[in-house]
């Protein structure tokens, strides 16, 4: 076993396994601990300049990764025209910079605002550091190893599908530059941290709100025993 296998085959499975099991455990047995842990009440101005760029930037970029994973062919076809390739790559870098700015504001806020510092846990700083590494390595990759949207579909799409279908093959990753490897390795660290940090709030994104009725009324009645008693009266 070499480092490549350890980091890109063993680690992903360990990280995913822990993330899934602990998240399920937390969701069922420790639901009180799951929260977005918003600190907007305590400080709002810097949060505005940090939270919005970071969240939207990272969500769109992650969606881009997901698209390349799910429909790689369409990405390649899109990139067939250079102009469209530049457009895609520039959008990616722009969004990455947007997320980076947000992340820097959030880090600055967490470290300098008294009210925020007192409610910060060590894990909050770990998450911030991992996210910073993730965004910075991603930006370096996008800038120096062109064009990511091209080679991602050739290297990472098969690699990730291999992981997900239990036929892992990390060999194509071995010759990649350090930055890209770090970007991937760091993602697995984020996965490891997922269930133990505030990151779990990602899976609670409340899409059900779009369809649920406005009002929620919960009955403690209509229980079989009570109904029988009433019927006999």
């Amino acid at each position, binding site marked *: 076993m070499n480092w490549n296998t350890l980091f890109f085959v063993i680690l992903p499975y360990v990280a995913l396994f822990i993330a899934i099991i602990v998240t399920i455990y937390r969701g069922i047995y420790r639901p009180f601990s799951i*929260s977005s842990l918003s*600190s907007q*009440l305590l400080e709002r101005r810097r949060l505005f300049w940090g939270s919005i760029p970071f969240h939207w930037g990272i969500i769109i970029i992650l969606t881009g990764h997901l698209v390349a994973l799910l429909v790689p062919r369409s990405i390649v076809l899109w990139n067939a025209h250079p102009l469209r390739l530049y457009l895609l790559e520039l959008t990616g870098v722009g969004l990455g910079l947007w997320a980076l700015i947000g992340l820097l504001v959030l880090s600055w806020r967490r470290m300098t605002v008294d*009210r925020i510092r007192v409610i910060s846990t060590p894990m909050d700083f770990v998450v911030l550091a991992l996210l910073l590494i993730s965004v910075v390595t991603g930006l370096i990759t996008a800038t120096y190893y062109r064009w990511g949207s091209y080679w991602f579909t050739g290297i990472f799409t098969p690699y990730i599908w291999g992981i997900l279908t239990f036929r892992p093959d990390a060999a194509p990753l071995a010759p990649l530059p350090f930055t890209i490897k770090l970007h991937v390795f760091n993602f697995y660290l984020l996965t490891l941290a997922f269930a133990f*940090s505030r990151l779990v709030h990602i899976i609670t994104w409340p899409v059900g709100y779009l369809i649920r009725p406005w009002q929620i009324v919960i009955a403690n009645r209509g229980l079989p025993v009570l109904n029988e008693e009433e019927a006999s009266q």
Partner: protein
Amino acid sequence: MNVRAHMSMLFHLDKCIGCHTCSIACKNLWTDRKGAEYMWWNNVETRPGAGYPTQWEDQEHFHGGWVYDGNGDGKPGKLRLRLQSRAGGLAKLFFNPDLPSLEDYYEPFTFRYGDLFNAPEGDDQPTAIPISQVTGRPLDIESGPNWDDDLGGSPLYAASDPNRRNLSPEVQEALSEVERVVFNYLPRICNHCLNPACVAACPSGAIYKRVEDGIVLVNENKCRGWRMCVAACPYKKVFYNWSTGKSEKCILCFPRMETGQAPACAHSCVGRIRYMGVLLYDADRIEAAAAVPDDRLLDAYMDTILDPFDPEVIAGARANGIDDGWIAAAQKSPVYKFAKVWKIALPLHLEYRTMAMMFYIPPLSPVMSTLENALTRLDINTEVEDFELLERLDAARLPVQYLANLFSVGDEQVIRRILRKMYAVRLYMRRKTVEGVMDDATLALLAGAGCTPEEAEAIYQLTTLPHVNDRFVLPPYHREMAVETWKDPLAHKGEVGIGYIQPPKRGD
């Protein structure tokens, strides 16, 4: 008809002395915890005043409650949350521009009392300096939960009361003249609305209304801290615990009520202004009643509350599994008597269309006076002042329009009718008990105010001399039966008690 029961509280504002005992009882019982120091599930405001959080009634700013777009053009309109659409709510999760910040409440503080004992010996008296309960650092106290206490008429606080917006300039001016200054107290808890905006705004679906008594609760295990409820509640009675990352609100002391005790705020009330009782309401009418033009709102709202003596209502209640004990409690309910039978109690700010279920009896106020040759003179003929006052409610210091803005969607006539009735009862009882003779003029006055002598006696009794069991008509919750259907108590003997399933620690 879909009959449901509701526990409602009634505040007799004419009796409130503004002592804040209710707030302290609530604070000691529920919110004396980290992250909850700034929350006042029960607070008492001085009116006219800015309130807590500051200017909470300014919905142009806070975007609470519901908006009805059918006002004016006669066509049936639609009801929508003022805060957000469904998709808009999800888009604003990362930053909610309408969320009040801690500055809108106040930074909670305590004092470093230890310094009084531990300070080194010196020439000066040691002092306990104020420190923030958030950061623990010294702070200059700039506001508090009742910072404008008793500051009626102040150019800063009373002048910023959103309910003064449509008062005439002369009345506005009179409100800030020293000789004419007036204020009353407004105790507030969660209104446990029939059409709650907090429930509708919660993306996680963590807030719900209990069927059995209508209490609106936050499921702390489902709450994810998206905090839309805080912004959507027009009364600003949902609070965000900055330590645990969960929303919290008044629970109407349901653990107390389930064991036959009145809520702590009501139980501790020094002026005995609070009444608790069951109301039966028609859940099928809520939606239609909330979506009518402003001028019909109060009537539509009152129509959703049902007559507990009506055989049809009783049958409907039984069909919905409402215990006979609850129906009996609804028939004795002081809230039902004041609000529906005597019609002198109103909900607060019905125009928010959340259908608030807590009721208020508007306060009477002294007669306006003017300064004349350095003497104050009442703006009223002193010989027949009692009678004249009824005809000249404008001479009362609290402007009728102001009360109407608070309690009757701006309709002055409703307030006039109630104040007339309250004055009439007062005059009738004064004739009877102080002077000992009843004259035709007083009886005519009473009849003119839409009140019979029997009714006046009953209002008098329940207002001034109620027994504790008259004020708090609490139904039997039979919680033991509800529990037994789920769990065999004997099987869990010794396993339950005081303690945490999990300490309420802030998650990582």
